[in-house]
């Protein structure tokens, strides 16, 4: 199988499939972020995202893995092993809680699984290079309309959580529900004053440059 990410091949947005939950709860998000990468950068990017099973070694071929859902996250042994190898080999796993609820099942189980398999998640400073990888977010992660509306846990999360190794982010965890915020058809961006997916561009650029 040809490696999808070499120095000459385009970036491929990959969504992680895991067995225990609704991994495909944000089906429009990949296309939206791909659109943003093309819209704001000159990075070569594949026009369509892929879904890659976390239990497969194919996951190791992608520099950025996106994982979301509402339901409890319990990785199988194979998924856990691949995940450990993935972050050890330089991959960036971005987990977003589609429930945006720190008391929800997704948050509790996902953070426990990351702690068990990799390391505890700790707050990521808002001055981290992630927030200036392409666009500058001086106040840290951009808020989402879901947070501002008070849905989920009624909190506006000021920081993302992360597992880092020598300042490189291995796992990035969000309670902000970017899965809902970015889950729309990219053509609708023309109606928006500020494109909410710009932070997704930072994610991609950071994953490709660190």
């Amino acid at each position, binding site marked *: 199988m040809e490696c999808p990410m070499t120095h000459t091949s385009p970036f491929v947005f990959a969504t992680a499939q895991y067995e*225990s939950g609704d991994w495909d709860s944000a089906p429009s998000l990949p296309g939206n972020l791909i659109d943003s990468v093309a819209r704001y950068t000159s990075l070569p990017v594949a026009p369509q995202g892929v879904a890659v099973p976390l239990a497969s070694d194919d996951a190791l071929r992608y520099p950025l893995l996106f994982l979301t859902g*509402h*339901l409890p996250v319990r990785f*199988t042994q194979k998924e856990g092993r691949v995940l450990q190898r993935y972050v050890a080999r330089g991959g960036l796993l971005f987990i977003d809680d589609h429930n945006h609820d720190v008391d929800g099942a997704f948050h509790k189980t996902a953070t426990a699984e990351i702690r068990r398999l990799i390391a505890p998640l700790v707050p990521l400073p808002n001055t981290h290079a992630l927030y*200036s990888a*392409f666009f*500058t977010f001086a106040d840290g992660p951009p808020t989402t309309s879901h947070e501002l509306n008070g849905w989920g846990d009624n909190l506006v999360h000021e920081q993302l959580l992360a597992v880092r190794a020598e300042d490189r982010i291995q796992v990035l965890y969000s309670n902000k529900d970017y899965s809902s915020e970015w889950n729309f058809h990219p053509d609708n961006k023309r109606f928006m004053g500020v494109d909410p997916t710009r932070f997704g561009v930072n994610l991609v650029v950071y994953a490709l440059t660190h």
Partner: protein
Amino acid sequence: MSAPSPAATAAFASTADVRARMERVRVRLVQLRTIRTLLYSLAVGVSTMFVLRLVARILGNRDADELASSTTVDMLLQGPLAFTPAVVAAGLVWWWSVSQWDQITPVRAALWYEEHHPASHAVVTLLEHGPEVLSSTIEQRLALAAAVPISPRVPAATALRRAMWLAWRTPLAIMLAAVLALSLVVFAPAGAVVRLVTAASVTTSEALTGARSALGTWNVDVIPPVYSGLPSRVLRDSGTVEALVGSRIRVTGVGRADDLTAAVTVRGDGTRPATTLAIVPTAQGWQAAMLMPSAPAVVRVASGNTSRLLVLVPRADSLPLVQLSRPIGDSVYRDTVGTITLTARLRDDLGLSSAAFELILTSGSGERYSARTLTLAPRRYSGERSGVLTHELSLGALGVAPGDIIHVRAVARDAYPASPREPGVSETRSLRFARAEEYDSVAVDAAPPPAVDSSLLSQRMLLDMTEKLEARRPRIARELMVAESRKLAVEQARIRRAVSAVVYQRLSGEGPSEHVHYEGDGHDHGVSVQAGKLVPSVGGGTVNVMPGAAPPRSNDNATDESPIIAVNRPLLEAYNAMWDAGRALELGDTRAAIPPMRVALDAIQRARAAERVYLRGRVRAVVVDLARVRLAGRDTGSASRRTPGEARPDSARIADARLLRAAGMLLVDPIAGRDSLVMLRLDALTSQPGFSRALELVLSALLDGRDATDALVRARRTLVKPVAASGVSAWSVP
């Protein structure tokens, strides 16, 4: 001077006496030649063995620092076949020498005799011509020869012995040199054959034994943590201690404690500074104690220039191993009644403490989920190494409803005292309970078109916001309440228009933004606008799709509605309910708005199910038109420059270089070389366990005074694999 032999000390008695004496000289000369040839043959044979062994070692080692060896050559030259070339070489020398021999006759013996005992050739003449030539002259010369004083001339017997020595000296020297060289090859220390041939150095084993004896023997007491329940043990004069993390390690030695120092260095995850250990004098000698760290460590006990190492190899208390054997896999259940059997098998290296099933029951869909975490069938264990946990899960008692999902796993803990430690967990099984509407869409990909789906989500969120605002109403001012409610009304109108667009698009085939609809616009779209609400026109009449109206019969064939109207009916109903909800929200009456909003949500849900039945489609994947959108964004950013990370060091090559340095150091400073190997082993304990085990054999051989060459070679092969050559070698069968 040695005693004169009969041949030289007595006068010849007779002709027969002359012949007898010369015969004895001839026999001795034959013996001399035979032994000399034999010595030469042996020397050549031993030399052949030496050369072949040396060649084998050189071929195997390639150079003194490289510890790889040629197994085939080595085995051939070390096995039974090793003597064959030597025997053949010796045989060839023997055969060649014998073939060159001239016969030693009595006359030649007499000539040799007269060379050392001049008799004016009387003896030779007598033996050559017999008694008939015996004349008075010959008798006179014989008598004269016999009468000549022995001194200062060398007597014949002494000359014979000297001749034998001169004859044996050269081959004997060659043979001794060959034996010495061969013994060096065979018994040389590790990896230093070539060096040892040129400059023999101190043997490693002697130096190491010396280091041990200088510090005396010691005993190591290992006292495991109390929670483990393991017994204490005593290791006699051990250099390595493998024990549970947290075990108390007590080293007790004999001798004076005054000049002893001890320090422990923890390795593994980066070298840390050594920590000095207190040496406590005791009645018998000294004692030092420490706790087994979580990373490999080494204790150095030193006295003057002599030191000895104690390697600490920690063994972690592993998490319990939990296997969920029932249910055997994820499943979807049709009914929410009955029981499900849960069975888990548990194992632990030290002993179990507790176990239970952990269950998460998730209810809801879309954006609304609630979860309950339950612990079932908790059980305590009293240190058993294994166990079985079972439970009958009653779905009725759990209150499972259609659409719910159960995630179940088994967890077990051992007696490890640290509370933050993760428990041992099994794989998680997901048990889902199907909704009724799923039954007729088994063959359909569970996904509606995105336009309807986005409306559905938005309506649910809007309802959620309205309910929250309604809950806040008693606590906020009326003006604020109305202002917030009107914001929601705007959102409700937006969703309503989106639904309207979908309906019109389906009925007329036109895009949502291409048409304007109003009452009495003269268009026939299959619907008409009445008092702000949409009413389908069927056969010139209208169908009641007002909220609360009785739904049509489920059999499509028995209704007058066209299929397209049937598909859109729920959306029309949702549109009209949204109209009502929007009016109530405009007035700030959230309480009145909530019921029609719920009706709208239910209607959209039904529309979604209908889509799944009728359209049988899946979400169309978004394929971005990259050429159209490339760099079309209004915002600009700047990418950070990529800084390629440094290549990770090749741990195998680093370990290989350290191994070679340590092996070379064994020849110069055996203790330093051994210590280097000990440190190398410690560093490899976790990252290169195979190499670490191989080094353990090397250290064992060194401490026992055995040849460590093979062990070193094997250790190196765990790091650097032999390079496969293409084609067949000379040793292969063609």
